[in-house]
Protein backbone atom coordinates (compact mmCIF):
# COMPACT_ATOMS: atom_id res chain seq x y z
CA UNK A 1 0.00 0.00 0.00
CA UNK A 2 1.36 3.41 -1.03
CA UNK A 3 0.08 5.26 2.02
CA UNK A 4 2.09 8.37 1.16
CA UNK A 5 0.28 8.45 -2.18
CA UNK A 6 -3.15 8.04 -0.59
CA UNK A 7 -2.32 10.74 1.94
CA UNK A 8 -1.10 13.07 -0.81
CA UNK A 9 -4.36 12.75 -2.79
CA UNK A 10 -6.52 12.94 0.35
CA UNK A 11 -4.95 16.13 1.70
CA UNK A 12 -4.70 17.66 -1.77
CA UNK A 13 -8.47 17.26 -2.10
CA UNK A 14 -9.14 18.60 1.39
CA UNK A 15 -6.91 21.59 0.60
CA UNK A 16 -9.02 22.20 -2.49
CA UNK A 17 -12.12 22.35 -0.27
CA UNK A 18 -10.32 24.78 2.01
CA UNK A 19 -9.40 26.98 -0.96
CA UNK A 20 -13.03 26.96 -2.08
CA UNK A 21 -14.55 27.28 1.38
CA UNK A 22 -17.46 29.39 0.19
CA UNK A 23 -18.65 26.83 -2.37
CA UNK A 24 -17.74 23.77 -0.30
CA UNK A 25 -19.19 24.64 3.07
CA UNK A 26 -20.78 28.08 3.26
CA UNK A 27 -23.04 27.69 0.23
CA UNK A 28 -24.71 24.36 1.21
CA UNK A 29 -25.02 25.51 4.83
CA UNK A 30 -26.75 28.69 3.67
CA UNK A 31 -29.17 26.93 1.32
CA UNK A 32 -30.08 24.32 3.96
CA UNK A 33 -30.59 27.07 6.50
CA UNK A 34 -33.05 28.67 4.09
CA UNK A 35 -35.00 25.40 3.94
CA UNK A 36 -35.13 25.33 7.73
CA UNK A 37 -36.33 28.92 7.90
CA UNK A 38 -39.02 28.46 5.23
CA UNK A 39 -40.19 24.88 5.77
CA UNK A 40 -39.14 24.38 9.36
CA UNK A 41 -39.89 27.64 11.14
CA UNK A 42 -42.26 29.59 8.86
CA UNK A 43 -44.51 27.03 7.12
CA UNK A 44 -43.63 24.17 9.48
CA UNK A 45 -45.25 25.86 12.45
CA UNK A 46 -48.62 25.61 10.64
CA UNK A 47 -48.22 21.93 9.74
CA UNK A 48 -49.43 19.21 12.08
CA UNK A 49 -46.97 16.80 13.72
CA UNK A 50 -45.90 13.71 11.78
CA UNK A 51 -45.53 10.52 13.85
CA UNK A 52 -45.54 12.72 16.92
CA UNK A 53 -42.65 14.83 15.70
CA UNK A 54 -42.94 18.54 14.93
CA UNK A 55 -42.64 19.21 11.19
CA UNK A 56 -39.51 21.32 11.62
CA UNK A 57 -37.75 18.47 13.44
CA UNK A 58 -39.19 15.88 11.05
CA UNK A 59 -37.45 17.37 8.03
CA UNK A 60 -34.01 17.66 9.69
CA UNK A 61 -32.79 14.16 8.68
CA UNK A 62 -34.21 14.51 5.17
CA UNK A 63 -32.64 17.91 4.57
CA UNK A 64 -29.36 16.68 5.97
CA UNK A 65 -29.56 13.73 3.59
CA UNK A 66 -30.34 16.08 0.68
CA UNK A 67 -27.15 18.02 1.38
CA UNK A 68 -25.05 14.91 1.94
CA UNK A 69 -26.19 13.29 -1.31
CA UNK A 70 -25.74 16.33 -3.52
CA UNK A 71 -22.48 17.50 -1.93
CA UNK A 72 -20.88 14.02 -1.86
CA UNK A 73 -21.74 13.50 -5.50
CA UNK A 74 -20.64 16.90 -6.72
CA UNK A 75 -17.48 16.99 -4.58
CA UNK A 76 -16.23 13.61 -5.67
CA UNK A 77 -17.21 14.06 -9.31
CA UNK A 78 -15.50 17.44 -9.50
CA UNK A 79 -12.43 16.11 -7.68
CA UNK A 80 -11.65 13.53 -10.34
CA UNK A 81 -13.13 15.37 -13.32
CA UNK A 82 -10.93 18.47 -12.90
CA UNK A 83 -7.61 16.59 -13.27
CA UNK A 84 -9.08 14.92 -16.35
CA UNK A 85 -10.19 18.27 -17.74
CA UNK A 86 -6.91 20.11 -17.04
CA UNK A 87 -4.69 17.15 -17.95
CA UNK A 88 -3.09 16.88 -14.50
CA UNK A 89 -4.47 13.34 -14.25
CA UNK A 90 -1.26 12.24 -16.04
CA UNK A 91 0.57 12.47 -12.74
CA UNK A 92 -1.84 10.23 -10.84
CA UNK A 93 -1.90 7.69 -13.69
CA UNK A 94 1.90 7.58 -13.89
CA UNK A 95 2.37 7.31 -10.12
CA UNK A 96 2.87 4.07 -8.20
CA UNK A 97 -0.71 4.13 -6.87
CA UNK A 98 -3.27 1.42 -7.52
CA UNK A 99 -6.93 1.99 -8.40
CA UNK A 100 -7.92 1.20 -4.82
CA UNK A 101 -5.50 3.81 -3.50
CA UNK A 102 -6.75 6.44 -5.95
CA UNK A 103 -10.33 5.76 -4.84
CA UNK A 104 -9.30 5.87 -1.15
CA UNK A 105 -7.70 9.28 -1.67
CA UNK A 106 -10.40 10.96 -3.75
CA UNK A 107 -13.50 9.30 -2.30
CA UNK A 108 -12.13 9.42 1.24
CA UNK A 109 -11.60 13.18 0.95
CA UNK A 110 -15.01 13.80 -0.63
CA UNK A 111 -16.75 11.71 2.04
CA UNK A 112 -14.81 13.48 4.82
CA UNK A 113 -15.91 16.85 3.48
CA UNK A 114 -19.53 15.67 3.34
CA UNK A 115 -19.49 14.34 6.89
CA UNK A 116 -17.98 17.61 8.17
CA UNK A 117 -20.59 19.52 6.19
CA UNK A 118 -23.36 17.29 7.56
CA UNK A 119 -22.26 17.93 11.13
CA UNK A 120 -22.09 21.68 10.51
CA UNK A 121 -25.60 21.61 9.06
CA UNK A 122 -26.79 19.57 12.03
CA UNK A 123 -25.44 22.21 14.40
CA UNK A 124 -26.92 25.00 12.25
CA UNK A 125 -30.31 23.29 12.25
CA UNK A 126 -30.38 23.55 16.02
CA UNK A 127 -30.60 27.31 15.66
CA UNK A 128 -33.92 26.99 13.81
CA UNK A 129 -35.59 23.84 15.12
CA UNK A 130 -35.56 21.67 18.21
CA UNK A 131 -34.67 18.06 17.44
CA UNK A 132 -33.27 15.05 19.27
CA UNK A 133 -31.09 12.11 18.18
CA UNK A 134 -32.26 8.78 19.62
CA UNK A 135 -29.43 6.62 18.20
CA UNK A 136 -26.39 8.91 17.72
CA UNK A 137 -23.99 6.09 16.78
CA UNK A 138 -26.37 4.82 14.12
CA UNK A 139 -26.92 8.37 12.95
CA UNK A 140 -23.19 8.81 12.49
CA UNK A 141 -22.96 5.45 10.75
CA UNK A 142 -25.74 6.31 8.30
CA UNK A 143 -24.09 9.67 7.69
CA UNK A 144 -20.66 8.15 6.98
CA UNK A 145 -21.98 5.25 4.88
CA UNK A 146 -24.17 7.54 2.79
CA UNK A 147 -21.32 10.03 2.31
CA UNK A 148 -18.99 7.23 1.16
CA UNK A 149 -21.58 5.64 -1.13
CA UNK A 150 -22.53 8.87 -2.87
CA UNK A 151 -18.91 9.97 -3.09
CA UNK A 152 -18.31 6.69 -4.92
CA UNK A 153 -21.20 7.55 -7.22
CA UNK A 154 -19.77 11.04 -7.74
CA UNK A 155 -16.35 9.56 -8.51
CA UNK A 156 -17.99 7.35 -11.12
CA UNK A 157 -19.77 10.33 -12.67
CA UNK A 158 -16.48 12.28 -12.73
CA UNK A 159 -14.72 9.39 -14.48
CA UNK A 160 -17.53 9.01 -16.99
CA UNK A 161 -18.23 12.68 -17.75
CA UNK A 162 -16.78 14.27 -20.86
CA UNK A 163 -18.03 17.77 -20.15
CA UNK A 164 -19.18 20.03 -17.33
CA UNK A 165 -22.76 19.55 -18.57
CA UNK A 166 -22.48 15.79 -18.10
CA UNK A 167 -20.93 16.39 -14.70
CA UNK A 168 -24.00 18.35 -13.62
CA UNK A 169 -26.70 16.31 -15.26
CA UNK A 170 -26.94 13.36 -12.83
CA UNK A 171 -26.90 15.45 -9.62
CA UNK A 172 -29.44 17.86 -11.09
CA UNK A 173 -31.70 15.53 -13.06
CA UNK A 174 -31.55 12.39 -10.93
CA UNK A 175 -30.33 12.91 -7.38
CA UNK A 176 -32.17 16.13 -6.50
CA UNK A 177 -35.59 14.90 -7.80
CA UNK A 178 -35.14 11.50 -6.15
CA UNK A 179 -34.29 13.18 -2.84
CA UNK A 180 -37.28 15.51 -2.99
CA UNK A 181 -39.52 12.54 -3.83
CA UNK A 182 -37.79 10.27 -1.32
CA UNK A 183 -39.55 11.49 1.79
CA UNK A 184 -37.35 14.44 2.67
CA UNK A 185 -40.33 16.68 3.39
CA UNK A 186 -42.98 14.05 4.14
CA UNK A 187 -43.54 10.52 5.36
CA UNK A 188 -44.29 8.18 2.48
CA UNK A 189 -47.24 6.92 4.53
CA UNK A 190 -48.89 10.24 3.67
CA UNK A 191 -48.98 9.26 -0.02
CA UNK A 192 -51.82 7.37 -1.80
CA UNK A 193 -51.26 3.61 -1.69
CA UNK A 194 -50.14 3.29 -5.32
CA UNK A 195 -47.56 6.06 -4.92
CA UNK A 196 -46.29 4.45 -1.73
CA UNK A 197 -45.46 1.34 -3.77
CA UNK A 198 -43.89 3.34 -6.61
CA UNK A 199 -41.87 5.37 -4.12
CA UNK A 200 -40.26 2.17 -2.81
CA UNK A 201 -38.40 1.99 -6.13
CA UNK A 202 -36.60 5.19 -5.15
CA UNK A 203 -33.35 4.25 -3.36
CA UNK A 204 -33.26 7.58 -1.51
CA UNK A 205 -36.39 6.55 0.42
CA UNK A 206 -34.33 3.92 2.24
CA UNK A 207 -31.55 6.39 3.09
CA UNK A 208 -33.90 9.06 4.43
CA UNK A 209 -36.00 6.51 6.29
CA UNK A 210 -33.04 4.84 7.96
CA UNK A 211 -31.51 8.18 8.84
CA UNK A 212 -34.78 9.45 10.28
CA UNK A 213 -35.05 6.27 12.35
CA UNK A 214 -31.67 7.07 13.94
CA UNK A 215 -33.13 10.45 15.01
CA UNK A 216 -36.63 9.57 16.13
CA UNK A 217 -36.91 5.78 16.22
CA UNK A 218 -39.65 5.68 13.58
CA UNK A 219 -39.14 4.76 9.92
CA UNK A 220 -41.09 4.26 6.70
CA UNK A 221 -39.20 1.04 5.99
CA UNK A 222 -37.33 -1.30 8.30
CA UNK A 223 -33.88 0.00 9.27
CA UNK A 224 -32.28 -3.31 8.23
CA UNK A 225 -33.61 -2.86 4.71
CA UNK A 226 -32.21 0.69 4.68
CA UNK A 227 -28.75 -0.55 5.62
CA UNK A 228 -29.02 -3.36 3.07
CA UNK A 229 -29.90 -0.89 0.32
CA UNK A 230 -26.91 1.34 1.17
CA UNK A 231 -24.65 -1.73 1.12
CA UNK A 232 -26.09 -2.83 -2.23
CA UNK A 233 -25.65 0.60 -3.77
CA UNK A 234 -22.10 0.83 -2.45
CA UNK A 235 -21.31 -2.61 -3.89
CA UNK A 236 -22.64 -1.58 -7.32
CA UNK A 237 -20.51 1.60 -7.32
CA UNK A 238 -17.41 -0.30 -6.18
CA UNK A 239 -18.00 -2.94 -8.86
CA UNK A 240 -18.25 -0.31 -11.59
CA UNK A 241 -15.16 1.56 -10.36
CA UNK A 242 -13.16 -1.68 -10.24
CA UNK A 243 -14.19 -2.37 -13.83
CA UNK A 244 -13.11 1.14 -14.89
CA UNK A 245 -9.65 0.77 -13.35
CA UNK A 246 -9.28 -2.72 -14.79
CA UNK A 247 -10.19 -1.71 -18.33
CA UNK A 248 -8.91 1.88 -18.23
CA UNK A 249 -12.30 3.01 -19.57
CA UNK A 250 -12.21 6.81 -20.08
CA UNK A 251 -8.97 6.95 -18.10
CA UNK A 252 -6.30 5.34 -20.24
CA UNK A 253 -6.55 5.35 -24.01
Amino acid sequence: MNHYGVKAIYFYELARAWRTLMQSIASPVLSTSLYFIVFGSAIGSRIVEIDGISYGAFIVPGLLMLSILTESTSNASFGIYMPKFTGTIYEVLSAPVSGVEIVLGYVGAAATKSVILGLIILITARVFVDYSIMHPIWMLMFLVLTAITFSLLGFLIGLWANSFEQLQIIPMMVITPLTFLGGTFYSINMLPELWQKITLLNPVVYLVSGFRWSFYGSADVHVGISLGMIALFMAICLGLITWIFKTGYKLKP
Partner: protein
Amino acid sequence: MPDILTLEGVEKTYDTGFTALTDINLSIRQGEIFALLGPNGAGKTTLIGIVCGIVKATGGRIIADSLDIHKDFRQARKQIGLVPQELSVNIFESVWDTVRFSRGLFGCPADDAYLEQLLKTLSLWDKKDSRIMALSGGMKRRVLIAKALAHQPNILFLDEPTAGVDVELRRDMWAMIRRLREEGVTIILTTHYIEEAEDMADRIGVINKGKLMLVEEKHALMRELGRKSLTVFLSEPLTTLPPNLIRDDLQLAEDGNSLIYSYSTAEASSGVSELLAQLQNAGIDYQDLQTRQSSLEEIFVSLVEEKP
Protein backbone atom coordinates in the same frame (compact mmCIF):
# COMPACT_ATOMS: atom_id res chain seq x y z
CA MET B 1 26.84 1.21 -19.91
CA PRO B 2 24.10 -1.32 -19.04
CA ASP B 3 20.56 -0.81 -20.29
CA ILE B 4 18.19 0.90 -17.86
CA LEU B 5 15.07 0.75 -20.01
CA THR B 6 14.14 -1.90 -22.53
CA LEU B 7 11.13 -1.97 -24.82
CA GLU B 8 10.40 -5.27 -26.54
CA GLY B 9 7.87 -5.44 -29.35
CA VAL B 10 5.75 -2.62 -27.99
CA GLU B 11 2.57 -2.07 -29.98
CA LYS B 12 -0.37 0.26 -29.68
CA THR B 13 -3.58 0.14 -31.65
CA TYR B 14 -6.36 2.44 -30.45
CA ASP B 15 -9.99 1.31 -30.25
CA THR B 16 -10.65 3.29 -33.41
CA GLY B 17 -8.33 0.87 -35.22
CA PHE B 18 -5.57 3.46 -35.61
CA THR B 19 -2.14 1.90 -35.10
CA ALA B 20 0.04 4.38 -33.23
CA LEU B 21 3.06 2.13 -32.61
CA THR B 22 4.30 -0.95 -34.40
CA ASP B 23 6.82 -3.39 -32.94
CA ILE B 24 8.99 -0.91 -31.04
CA ASN B 25 12.25 -2.42 -29.82
CA LEU B 26 14.51 -0.01 -28.01
CA SER B 27 17.13 -0.09 -25.29
CA ILE B 28 18.12 3.01 -23.35
CA ARG B 29 21.53 2.99 -21.71
CA GLN B 30 22.00 4.03 -18.14
CA GLY B 31 23.11 7.65 -17.79
CA GLU B 32 22.65 8.66 -21.41
CA ILE B 33 20.63 11.44 -22.96
CA PHE B 34 18.47 9.87 -25.62
CA ALA B 35 16.58 12.11 -28.03
CA LEU B 36 13.51 10.69 -29.68
CA LEU B 37 12.83 12.65 -32.83
CA GLY B 38 9.83 12.55 -35.05
CA PRO B 39 7.21 14.71 -36.72
CA ASN B 40 3.86 15.47 -35.13
CA GLY B 41 1.76 12.35 -34.77
CA ALA B 42 4.78 10.05 -35.11
CA GLY B 43 3.99 8.25 -31.86
CA LYS B 44 6.53 9.89 -29.52
CA THR B 45 4.04 10.92 -26.86
CA THR B 46 2.19 7.60 -27.11
CA LEU B 47 5.47 5.77 -26.57
CA ILE B 48 6.30 7.87 -23.50
CA GLY B 49 2.71 7.45 -22.28
CA ILE B 50 3.01 3.68 -22.45
CA VAL B 51 6.27 3.57 -20.51
CA CYS B 52 4.83 5.91 -17.86
CA GLY B 53 1.54 4.03 -17.52
CA ILE B 54 -0.74 6.68 -19.01
CA VAL B 55 -1.51 4.77 -22.19
CA LYS B 56 -2.21 1.04 -22.37
CA ALA B 57 -0.02 -0.90 -24.77
CA THR B 58 -1.71 -3.54 -26.89
CA GLY B 59 1.42 -5.65 -27.04
CA GLY B 60 5.02 -6.00 -25.93
CA ARG B 61 6.98 -5.76 -22.72
CA ILE B 62 8.79 -2.93 -20.95
CA ILE B 63 11.52 -3.37 -18.37
CA ALA B 64 12.62 -0.33 -16.34
CA ASP B 65 15.64 -0.77 -14.09
CA SER B 66 15.18 -4.59 -14.21
CA LEU B 67 11.50 -4.24 -13.26
CA ASP B 68 8.54 -5.17 -15.43
CA ILE B 69 6.40 -2.02 -15.58
CA HIS B 70 3.18 -4.04 -15.20
CA LYS B 71 4.12 -6.79 -12.77
CA ASP B 72 6.26 -4.52 -10.56
CA PHE B 73 4.44 -1.30 -11.33
CA ARG B 74 5.01 0.21 -7.90
CA GLN B 75 8.77 -0.12 -7.91
CA ALA B 76 9.11 0.50 -11.65
CA ARG B 77 7.11 3.74 -11.60
CA LYS B 78 9.15 5.07 -8.70
CA GLN B 79 12.15 4.98 -11.03
CA ILE B 80 10.46 7.12 -13.67
CA GLY B 81 9.66 10.83 -13.81
CA LEU B 82 7.67 12.50 -16.56
CA VAL B 83 7.57 16.09 -17.74
CA PRO B 84 4.58 16.24 -20.07
CA GLN B 85 4.38 18.31 -23.22
CA GLU B 86 1.34 20.31 -22.08
CA LEU B 87 1.61 22.69 -19.14
CA SER B 88 -0.71 20.48 -17.11
CA VAL B 89 -0.56 21.76 -13.57
CA ASN B 90 -3.14 22.96 -11.07
CA ILE B 91 -2.77 26.72 -11.37
CA PHE B 92 -4.53 27.39 -8.06
CA GLU B 93 -1.86 25.59 -6.05
CA SER B 94 1.40 27.02 -4.76
CA VAL B 95 4.72 25.77 -6.14
CA TRP B 96 5.67 24.30 -2.77
CA ASP B 97 2.38 22.45 -2.32
CA THR B 98 2.49 20.96 -5.79
CA VAL B 99 6.01 19.54 -5.46
CA ARG B 100 5.22 18.13 -2.02
CA PHE B 101 2.11 16.52 -3.51
CA SER B 102 4.16 14.92 -6.30
CA ARG B 103 6.69 13.50 -3.87
CA GLY B 104 3.97 11.98 -1.70
CA LEU B 105 2.05 10.65 -4.68
CA PHE B 106 5.11 8.67 -5.74
CA GLY B 107 5.31 7.03 -2.35
CA CYS B 108 8.19 9.02 -0.85
CA PRO B 109 8.24 10.39 2.69
CA ALA B 110 8.40 14.19 2.96
CA ASP B 111 11.91 15.60 2.51
CA ASP B 112 11.68 19.36 2.61
CA ALA B 113 15.45 19.79 2.47
CA TYR B 114 15.64 17.93 -0.85
CA LEU B 115 12.67 19.84 -2.29
CA GLU B 116 14.23 23.14 -1.21
CA GLN B 117 17.43 22.20 -2.99
CA LEU B 118 15.47 21.12 -6.06
CA LEU B 119 13.55 24.40 -6.25
CA LYS B 120 16.75 26.36 -5.76
CA THR B 121 18.41 24.45 -8.61
CA LEU B 122 15.47 25.31 -10.85
CA SER B 123 15.47 28.97 -9.72
CA LEU B 124 12.01 28.52 -8.24
CA TRP B 125 12.79 28.87 -4.55
CA ASP B 126 11.79 32.54 -4.32
CA LYS B 127 8.49 31.60 -5.99
CA LYS B 128 7.73 28.69 -3.72
CA ASP B 129 4.71 30.36 -2.11
CA SER B 130 3.38 31.83 -5.36
CA ARG B 131 0.32 30.38 -6.95
CA ILE B 132 1.24 28.68 -10.20
CA MET B 133 -1.19 30.90 -12.12
CA ALA B 134 1.06 33.87 -11.34
CA LEU B 135 4.10 32.27 -13.01
CA SER B 136 5.31 32.74 -16.58
CA GLY B 137 5.11 29.90 -19.10
CA GLY B 138 8.80 29.11 -18.68
CA MET B 139 8.48 28.97 -14.93
CA LYS B 140 5.45 26.71 -15.17
CA ARG B 141 7.53 24.33 -17.25
CA ARG B 142 10.21 24.39 -14.57
CA VAL B 143 7.54 23.60 -11.99
CA LEU B 144 6.62 20.55 -14.06
CA ILE B 145 10.28 19.51 -14.07
CA ALA B 146 10.44 20.00 -10.29
CA LYS B 147 7.33 17.84 -9.91
CA ALA B 148 8.85 15.12 -12.08
CA LEU B 149 12.06 15.16 -10.03
CA ALA B 150 10.35 15.42 -6.63
CA HIS B 151 10.60 11.65 -6.07
CA GLN B 152 14.23 11.44 -7.26
CA PRO B 153 13.70 9.18 -10.30
CA ASN B 154 16.52 7.44 -12.18
CA ILE B 155 14.83 7.85 -15.54
CA LEU B 156 13.39 11.16 -16.67
CA PHE B 157 11.14 11.62 -19.68
CA LEU B 158 10.94 15.11 -21.11
CA ASP B 159 8.26 15.44 -23.75
CA GLU B 160 9.11 18.51 -25.85
CA PRO B 161 10.70 20.30 -22.88
CA THR B 162 11.56 23.45 -24.80
CA ALA B 163 8.44 23.83 -26.94
CA GLY B 164 7.37 27.47 -26.76
CA VAL B 165 10.30 28.40 -24.53
CA ASP B 166 12.46 31.42 -25.36
CA VAL B 167 16.11 31.03 -26.34
CA GLU B 168 17.58 32.02 -23.00
CA LEU B 169 15.37 29.69 -21.03
CA ARG B 170 16.01 26.92 -23.53
CA ARG B 171 19.73 27.24 -22.85
CA ASP B 172 19.04 27.14 -19.09
CA MET B 173 16.97 24.04 -19.64
CA TRP B 174 19.74 22.35 -21.59
CA ALA B 175 22.24 23.18 -18.85
CA MET B 176 19.86 21.73 -16.28
CA ILE B 177 19.39 18.54 -18.29
CA ARG B 178 23.15 18.13 -18.52
CA ARG B 179 23.46 18.62 -14.76
CA LEU B 180 20.87 15.93 -14.18
CA ARG B 181 22.78 13.58 -16.41
CA GLU B 182 25.92 14.28 -14.41
CA GLU B 183 23.98 13.29 -11.31
CA GLY B 184 23.27 9.93 -12.95
CA VAL B 185 19.73 10.47 -14.25
CA THR B 186 19.00 8.83 -17.59
CA ILE B 187 17.15 11.28 -19.82
CA ILE B 188 14.84 10.55 -22.70
CA LEU B 189 13.57 13.63 -24.48
CA THR B 190 11.47 14.27 -27.51
CA THR B 191 12.04 17.35 -29.56
CA HIS B 192 11.46 19.10 -32.84
CA TYR B 193 14.62 21.18 -32.59
CA ILE B 194 17.54 19.66 -34.41
CA GLU B 195 20.02 21.87 -32.54
CA GLU B 196 18.62 20.56 -29.28
CA ALA B 197 19.29 16.97 -30.24
CA GLU B 198 22.61 17.99 -31.76
CA ASP B 199 23.68 19.87 -28.68
CA MET B 200 22.65 17.42 -26.03
CA ALA B 201 21.88 13.88 -27.06
CA ASP B 202 24.28 10.95 -26.92
CA ARG B 203 22.04 8.86 -29.11
CA ILE B 204 19.09 9.66 -31.31
CA GLY B 205 16.09 7.59 -32.27
CA VAL B 206 13.93 8.56 -35.21
CA ILE B 207 10.29 7.58 -35.09
CA ASN B 208 7.74 8.06 -37.82
CA LYS B 209 4.24 6.74 -38.34
CA GLY B 210 4.60 4.60 -35.24
CA LYS B 211 7.76 2.86 -36.41
CA LEU B 212 11.22 3.32 -35.01
CA MET B 213 13.14 4.12 -38.20
CA LEU B 214 16.61 4.11 -36.72
CA VAL B 215 18.61 4.46 -33.53
CA GLU B 216 22.12 5.80 -33.87
CA GLU B 217 24.91 7.62 -32.13
CA LYS B 218 24.36 11.33 -32.57
CA HIS B 219 27.49 12.01 -34.60
CA ALA B 220 26.68 9.31 -37.12
CA LEU B 221 23.14 10.55 -37.52
CA MET B 222 24.05 14.20 -37.78
CA ARG B 223 26.13 13.46 -40.83
CA GLU B 224 22.97 12.13 -42.37
CA LEU B 225 20.57 14.76 -41.10
CA GLY B 226 22.58 17.95 -40.95
CA ARG B 227 21.66 19.61 -44.22
CA LYS B 228 21.38 23.32 -44.88
CA SER B 229 20.18 25.40 -47.76
CA LEU B 230 21.56 28.64 -49.18
CA THR B 231 19.23 30.98 -51.04
CA VAL B 232 20.94 33.39 -53.43
CA PHE B 233 18.71 36.35 -54.29
CA LEU B 234 19.58 37.42 -57.83
CA SER B 235 19.82 41.02 -59.03
CA GLU B 236 18.25 40.05 -62.37
CA PRO B 237 15.86 37.11 -62.76
CA LEU B 238 17.02 34.11 -64.81
CA THR B 239 14.86 32.03 -67.11
CA THR B 240 17.21 29.03 -67.06
CA LEU B 241 20.44 28.06 -65.35
CA PRO B 242 23.64 28.35 -67.41
CA PRO B 243 24.73 24.79 -68.48
CA ASN B 244 27.83 24.80 -66.25
CA LEU B 245 25.65 25.43 -63.18
CA ILE B 246 23.17 22.62 -63.81
CA ARG B 247 23.61 20.15 -60.92
CA ASP B 248 21.44 18.14 -58.48
CA ASP B 249 22.03 20.37 -55.46
CA LEU B 250 21.19 23.67 -57.18
CA GLN B 251 17.67 24.74 -58.15
CA LEU B 252 16.35 27.88 -59.80
CA ALA B 253 13.23 29.20 -58.03
CA GLU B 254 10.06 29.16 -60.11
CA ASP B 255 9.96 32.96 -60.39
CA GLY B 256 13.63 32.95 -61.50
CA ASN B 257 14.57 35.48 -58.80
CA SER B 258 16.64 33.17 -56.62
CA LEU B 259 18.84 30.09 -56.59
CA ILE B 260 18.55 27.45 -53.86
CA TYR B 261 21.68 25.46 -53.05
CA SER B 262 21.47 22.61 -50.55
CA TYR B 263 24.53 21.16 -48.81
CA SER B 264 25.59 19.07 -45.88
CA THR B 265 27.17 20.65 -42.82
CA ALA B 266 29.02 17.43 -42.15
CA GLU B 267 31.10 17.58 -45.35
CA ALA B 268 34.61 18.99 -45.12
CA SER B 269 33.62 21.79 -47.47
CA SER B 270 30.14 23.24 -47.83
CA GLY B 271 30.82 24.23 -51.46
CA VAL B 272 29.34 27.68 -50.85
CA SER B 273 32.45 29.68 -51.82
CA GLU B 274 32.93 27.56 -54.96
CA LEU B 275 29.33 28.19 -55.97
CA LEU B 276 29.63 31.94 -55.43
CA ALA B 277 32.83 31.97 -57.52
CA GLN B 278 31.03 30.07 -60.28
CA LEU B 279 28.19 32.61 -60.24
CA GLN B 280 30.67 35.45 -60.52
CA ASN B 281 32.42 33.74 -63.42
CA ALA B 282 29.09 33.25 -65.15
CA GLY B 283 28.35 36.95 -64.68
CA ILE B 284 25.36 36.31 -62.45
CA ASP B 285 25.02 39.14 -59.97
CA TYR B 286 23.25 38.70 -56.63
CA GLN B 287 22.00 41.12 -53.99
CA ASP B 288 21.55 38.97 -50.88
CA LEU B 289 22.24 35.55 -49.36
CA GLN B 290 20.29 33.57 -46.81
CA THR B 291 21.13 30.24 -45.22
CA ARG B 292 18.75 28.04 -43.37
CA GLN B 293 18.99 24.74 -41.50
CA SER B 294 16.48 22.25 -42.80
CA SER B 295 13.83 21.62 -40.20
CA LEU B 296 13.78 18.23 -38.63
CA GLU B 297 10.36 17.60 -39.99
CA GLU B 298 11.59 18.21 -43.54
CA ILE B 299 14.48 15.88 -42.88
CA PHE B 300 12.15 13.24 -41.57
CA VAL B 301 9.96 13.49 -44.60
CA SER B 302 12.99 12.90 -46.79
CA LEU B 303 14.17 10.10 -44.49
CA VAL B 304 10.83 8.40 -44.64
CA GLU B 305 10.56 8.80 -48.39
CA GLU B 306 13.94 7.18 -48.77
CA LYS B 307 13.06 4.31 -46.47
CA PRO B 308 9.46 3.38 -47.13
